[in-house]
């Protein structure tokens, strides 16, 4: 086999320009696949990321509670439970949170709703890149501090630096959310550790479960419900479904464009190999005369065409990666464009396939040559 490769390299280097141009044709196609593919991967990653805050998470609550707001008290989401969920297959991350609901004011609902979150993961509740009207974000798990919704701060005339009392403990107002950030007017955000401490809680009100793949969120939620009898897992599946359809469409579209150009490159390979075997007819006859089997010739020619397409493929992956890398700076929307290992390996496999596809007919023709006629051929 080593000998064959050596010989194949010798043969394709005999016509350097032609080999180079043919490989270049494949290179363009593979570059297109890699660059466009990385854009669709980037869009996919971006949508995935957005979705995890927009309902791309599963909300796990205790079945005994009638809803997430009432979660505390009858809740059974203990730390142990969280660990079990975390190690569940398909789960990327589990983010616990708790709720405390203030006194109900007639006609208005509760006076306030306190949400206890881990400051490191507060974006799961208040959104990504939290927008503050003033002050700072929560910093540590156990600090006695709160963020107030814009409306609550206004209504109660509170601002950064003031204190507010819960369960006979003083909490410092460290920040006020921007208007329109909270979906409830009476929202107070508190570090989860401080809340568990002050309200003497030993389990959580709910947990956000982040799936590995937003597209599989629905089935993951079902599996969680099957495995944990007493928990309910809810998703905003509609959004996730639509998004994954959009991503699929983009993917098919981009790979389609790349694929077409690569197939054109593959036809170039076929053309080159047909010319090559015409020119080397006599030589192929000689090889057969000295004992080469049909399969030897077939393998030899296929190897040559695969080497050409792989040269184009490897360079195409490199150029496509470079292109994808520069796109990140060209447009913020493409900041996530990335060449995944699957994309790179897939592209190389496709290049190999093009070599086999473009090389098969010429190789078969060469293998079937009558040695006597081929030797006589001038």
């Amino acid at each position, binding site marked *: 086999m080593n000998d064959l490769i050596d010989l194949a390299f010798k043969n394709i280097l005999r016509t350097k320009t032609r080999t180079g141009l043919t490989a270049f044709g494949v290179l363009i196609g593979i570059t297109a696949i890699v660059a466009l593919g990385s854009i669709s991967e980037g869009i996919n990653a971006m949508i995935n990321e957005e979705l995890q805050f927009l309902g791309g998470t599963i909300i796990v609550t205790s079945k005994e509670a009638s809803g997430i707001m009432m979660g505390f008290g009858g809740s059974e989401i203990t730390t142990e439970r969280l660990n079990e969920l975390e190690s569940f297959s398909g789960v990327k991350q589990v983010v616990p949170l708790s709720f405390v609901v203030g006194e109900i004011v007639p006609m208005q609902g509760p006076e306030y709703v306190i949400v206890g979150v881990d400051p490191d993961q507060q974006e799961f509740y208040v959104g990504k890149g939290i927008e503050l009207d003033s002050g700072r974000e929560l910093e540590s798990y156990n600090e006695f501090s709160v963020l107030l919704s814009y409306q609550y701060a206004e209504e109660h005339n509170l601002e950064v630096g003031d204190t507010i009392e819960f369960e006979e403990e003083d909490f410092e107002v460290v920040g006020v959310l921007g208007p329109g950030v909270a979906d409830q007017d009476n929202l107070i955000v508190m570090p989860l550790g401080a809340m568990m401490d002050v309200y003497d809680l030993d389990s959580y009100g709910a947990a956000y479960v982040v799936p590995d793949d937003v597209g599989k969120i629905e089935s993951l939620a079902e599996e969680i419900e099957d495995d944990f009898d007493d928990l309910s897992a809810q998703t905003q599946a509609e959004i996730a479904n639509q998004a994954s359809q959009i991503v699929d469409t983009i993917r098919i579209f981009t790979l389609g464009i790349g694929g077409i150009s690569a197939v054109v490159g593959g036809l170039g390979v076929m053309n080159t190999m047909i010319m090559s075997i015409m020119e080397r007819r006599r030589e192929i006859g000689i090889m057969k005369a*000295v*004992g*080469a089997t049909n399969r030897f010739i077939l393998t030899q020619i296929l190897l040559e065409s695969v080497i050409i397409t792989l040269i184009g493929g490897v360079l195409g992956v490199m150029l496509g990666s470079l292109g994808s890398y520069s796109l990140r700076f060209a447009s913020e929307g493409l900041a996530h464009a990335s060449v995944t290992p699957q994309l790179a390996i897939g592209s190389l496999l496709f290049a190999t396939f093009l070599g086999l596809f473009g090389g098969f007919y010429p190789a078969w023709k060469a293998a079937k040559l009558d040695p006597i006629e081929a030797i006589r051929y001038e």
Partner: protein
Amino acid sequence: MNNIIEVKDVKKIYNQGKPNELIVLKDIDMKIKKGEMIAIFGPSGSGKSTLLHIIGCLDRATKGKVYIEGKDVSGLSDDELAFIRRDKMGFVFQQFNLVSALTTLENVELPMRISNMNREKTRKRAKELLKSVDLGERLNHFPRQLSGGEMQRVAMARALANEPDVILADEPTGNLDSKTGEEIVNLMVKLNKKGYTFIIVTHDLAIAKYASRKLNIKDGKIWRR
């Protein structure tokens, strides 16, 4: 029973049953013993090259049988014929037929590489063979850098690569001037004395001088033995 090759009632017909049917060989019978040097003469178009190709398993007879070392090769597949060519036959052509992209050394290595011989052994043997045809100094030359006589000696070394039973030469001196032609004849005689069996299709009377047997083919038949 020392017949290394036996040809029985061999016919070769092109385009059989069509209006342009062409009978090239009619009922050829011959036996060749190990160590012989057979010269086949005949006018062009007499079918002598076709006979050589059939004996060398490059071509198939339309009818009749060819035995090589007692084995009937008539019904063998393409690949099985290729193995016989590889292991038992050595070819030398009028046009030399070296691979132009390969060096002298690589040309001689080719049959051994096709038979998957160990790389080092291949190289060693190719060098020895080229030395034996006085081309030890031209290992890395390409065919275009060699004279006709040199190319034919490379072809001879290549024919010997896999230690064949028979060397089949089709007008080996036909493209050479008489002096270099003589060198090739001498080389063949030397190899024949070492025990190699030769079947030579030729016009060259110099070869006739050394041949152990001379066959004349005309109109697809052997006329004189």
